[in-house]
């Protein structure tokens, strides 16, 4: 086992997949000699060349649109959108084209494509380098939406995403790129299946659902309240679409209480979907209201440090929400 960062897990995944399958290539802004603005593709340009690690024109729409075309031709592109905040020009290509291609051609055409994008706040990125975009894409049948929260999952999920025959929106918690470290096996193939959540901490009193950076904080919050006698079960959702309903329901049937945390804004956020699943399928198992802790309903994360902190859920706020729900 090696102790690596989350971003190193992503880099290893891409390195291995480029080495495994010549249909795989990377396209995006600054992914070449620069190795990506976050260094996710560091060394890959030197190893695989300019034909397979392509510095695109500065235009997100065509990073995805050209990727879709290449996928239609049988390639397996990994498209990097430099920040999730910049993905909107490509929204039409992702939603109208990639997501609908299989259905609209009755399965004649498919789009094996990964769109990687760093998302989330807490890094001084202001309104346009901090956004969480998962709810937009989790609403679109035909896409898969994946968010890792550990180096192990970052590597294993990205490798699975590259091998998946469908378009996958792969959102990376950029605050955790170097902050989150973890053990990853060496010298063996690491694949984590898409569509499965993970119980990352067992508990009997309350189910805490999170993903990405908030999952990291959720584990910290669970530790905080443990001495108070509150045993929190933490579930890392990992894949938002398709959601792992079984794992979600099984946990709440055990604990009877559910708290959902995300840094994306509250209204219409992904937590609403989990809440709806619980209301519909676990109504009689619930011993308290399904609660959501989310970013406030403002347009995006403000820049100034105190304002950013005001926006971002963290371990302390999650702990407070846990105490409130546990006391219900």
């Amino acid at each position, binding site marked *: 086992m090696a102790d690596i960062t989350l971003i190193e897990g992503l880099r290893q995944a891409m390195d291995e997949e480029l080495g495994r399958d010549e249909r795989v290539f990377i396209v995006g802004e600054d992914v070449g000699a620069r190795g990506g603005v976050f260094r996710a593709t560091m060394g890959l340009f030197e190893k695989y060349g300019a034909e397979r690690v392509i510095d695109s024109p500065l*235009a997100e*729409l*065509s990073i995805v649109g*050209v990727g879709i075309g290449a996928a239609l031709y049988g*390639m397996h592109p990994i498209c990097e959108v430099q920040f999730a905040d910049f993905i909107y020009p490509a929204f039409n290509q992702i939603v109208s084209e990639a997501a609908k291609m299989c*259905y609209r*051609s009755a399965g004649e055409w498919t789009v094996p494509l990964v769109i990687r994008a760093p998302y989330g706040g807490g890094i001084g990125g202001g309104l346009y380098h901090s956004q969480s975009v998962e709810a937009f894409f989790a609403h679109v049948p035909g896409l898969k939406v994946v968010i890792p929260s550990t180096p192990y999952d970052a590597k294993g999920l990205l490798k699975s995403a590259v091998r998946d025959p469908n378009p996958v929106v792969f959102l990376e918690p950029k605050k955790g790129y170097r902050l989150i470290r973890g053990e990853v096996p060496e010298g063996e193939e690491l694949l984590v299946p898409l569509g499965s959540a993970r119980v990352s901490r067992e508990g009997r009193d309350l189910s805490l659902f999170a993903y990405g950076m908030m999952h990291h904080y959720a584990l910290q919050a669970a530790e905080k309240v443990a001495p108070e006698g509150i045993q929190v079960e933490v579930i890392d959702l990992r894949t938002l679409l398709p959601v792992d309903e079984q794992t979600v329901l099984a946990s709440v049937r055990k604990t009877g209480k559910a708290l959902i945390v995300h840094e994306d804004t509250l209204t219409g956020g992904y937590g609403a979907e989990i809440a709806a699943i619980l209301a519909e399928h676990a109504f009689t198992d619930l011993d308290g209201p399904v609660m959501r802790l989310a970013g406030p309903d403002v347009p995006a994360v403000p820049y100034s440090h105190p304002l950013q902190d005001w926006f971002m859920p963290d371990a302390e706020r999650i702990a407070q929400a846990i105490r409130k729900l546990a006391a219900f």
Partner: protein
Amino acid sequence: MAVRQDLQVELSQETLLEMYWYMVLSRRLDERAWVLHRQGKVAFHISAIGHEAAQVGAVFALRRGQDWLVPYYRDLAMVLALGLTPLEFMFGLMGKQGDPSSGARQMPSHWSLRRANVVSHSSPVATQSCHASGIGLGIKMRGDEAVVLTTIGEGSTSQGEWYEAVNWAAVHRLPVIFMVENNTYAISVRKELQMAVAHVADKAAGLGLPGITVDGLDPLQVHAVMSEAVARARAGDGPTVVETVVHRMTPHSSDDDDRSYRPRQEVEAMKAQDPVAGFRDRLLMLGALNDQAEEQIQARAKHEVDQAVSLAAEAPYPGLEQGGFPVYVEDIRHG
């Protein structure tokens, strides 16, 4: 930009007649689609009438079966020349099982024909252009010999997507031909309100690739220009914008009424320059066609259209369970 009239490609009499056949077949199917709509038998039709010469001229410059087409909704003659059958067109028009484009999920004339390398496209315009560049990128990465033809209306070249696609192909010298079927109107809005350049092909200069304008009512001129662009693409010399100037002799679609935005004289003048009739007269003059052969061609087209309509009318609609899949590749049912 230059309007080229000097290019010549020798075509056999057999090829000329095949080109004419697809123009006639497209026209007769198209006219029947309008009739079926007026009879309330189909919900929607969008027409290729006036575009046939440009489309057939272009397709005949391709290696059919090897090269790729990323079309738009007006390309009936083009997809017929690539192998879509009249019955398959009618399946799609009527929303019947057996439509090869989408299993009757999409509106009519949203083409896809995997067996002929015709790629599925959608309704938001210019979304297909980047796909053509991506296919071109794939061809280049694999070192294949194919080229990609993609088509679009002149109004849709206002979209940023089109510029991004052409720019990509130009930067990477991809084997793509961006064909613009310029019929002057984007539904009701004339070209003068879409662009400040005189010719759509002028836009190519700003993106660093050749742009050429050709009379889209003349299939042989289109064929010659397109053959040159295809040869450049295949040789690794990069993409070309080819603007074919055509007439939209009908309203935009069956939901449009063009009387409010263009004078009847204009439409009548277009009809006097009908590209199908024009090519017929030219073939008669060249001796490639005679009155008897023309009668046979028309009778065959009528027979094929009649047969397609009657078979499609009797065919079943898709079963309701077909609405539920395939959302993901895992859902695809084979056989």
